[in-house]
């Protein structure tokens, strides 16, 4: 079975949207120190949720056709984008521990995808 290029693109965009969503949620979450009511009427959180939903819709469409051994690792690229946002926007450090953990996770997801054929 071959994986359609459209499926790969859908899943790739989904992974990108997911990481952007997580970034906005992180930015919005900082305001919650003001109290629970800041969960609502919070522009950044709303944007984060919109990106998350967009990501899920594209993900559902994307994994309908094709090989999961190809598509799962593409989805997990999301964690790499998020690491970049974390570094650029939230001054979180790239540490060897984080990179090691992330590499293990990506490898593990590749295996799970292979096992799902």
């Amino acid at each position, binding site marked *: 079975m071959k994986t359609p290029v459209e499926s790969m693109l859908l899943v790739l965009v989904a992974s990108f949207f997911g*990481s952007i969503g997580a970034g906005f949620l992180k930015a919005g979450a900082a305001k919650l120190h003001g109290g629970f009511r800041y969960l609502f009427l919070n522009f950044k959180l709303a944007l984060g949720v919109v990106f998350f939903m967009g990501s899920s819709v594209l993900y559902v469409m994307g994994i309908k056709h094709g090989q999961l051994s190809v598509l799962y690792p593409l989805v997990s690229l999301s964690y790499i984008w998020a690491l970049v946002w974390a570094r650029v926007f939230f001054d979180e450090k790239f540490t060897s521990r984080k990179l090691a*953990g992330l590499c293990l996770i990506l490898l*593990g997801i590749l295996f799970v995808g292979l096992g799902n054929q």
Partner: protein
Amino acid sequence: MSSAADSAAVEARRVAARRKGIGLVVICTALGAAGQILIKMGADRLVHATLWSTLLGFITIPPLFAGYCLYALMTVLFIFALKDGELSILYPIISLTYVWVAGLSFWFFHDTLNWAKLAGIVIIVTGVAVLGKDAHK
């Protein structure tokens, strides 16, 4: 000002906050996995996976609706975890979802658990453990 006892108390609070964030995300992954199983059940009922039929399906297909409700709950918990936690640590922990999904699929859909999946599960859990371990110790 800061005695050893004070800094120990600060350290204890920091560790507790960190554990709370990671614990919340682990709960998120369990909810996300349950959501994914429901979404899978619902997606199988989608005739065409076009944008509009998928969007309409969220309302008309109960397992899809329930699955996305769990996603919503997961998102709220994730926001609370992010409040005090690092994005670069908490976001990759979401990958534990794959572990629960493999387990739940085995249970509900009688999916096979082959060596590749088991190896993947062990590697993911190891990766999460590496991320979750406190780097400041």
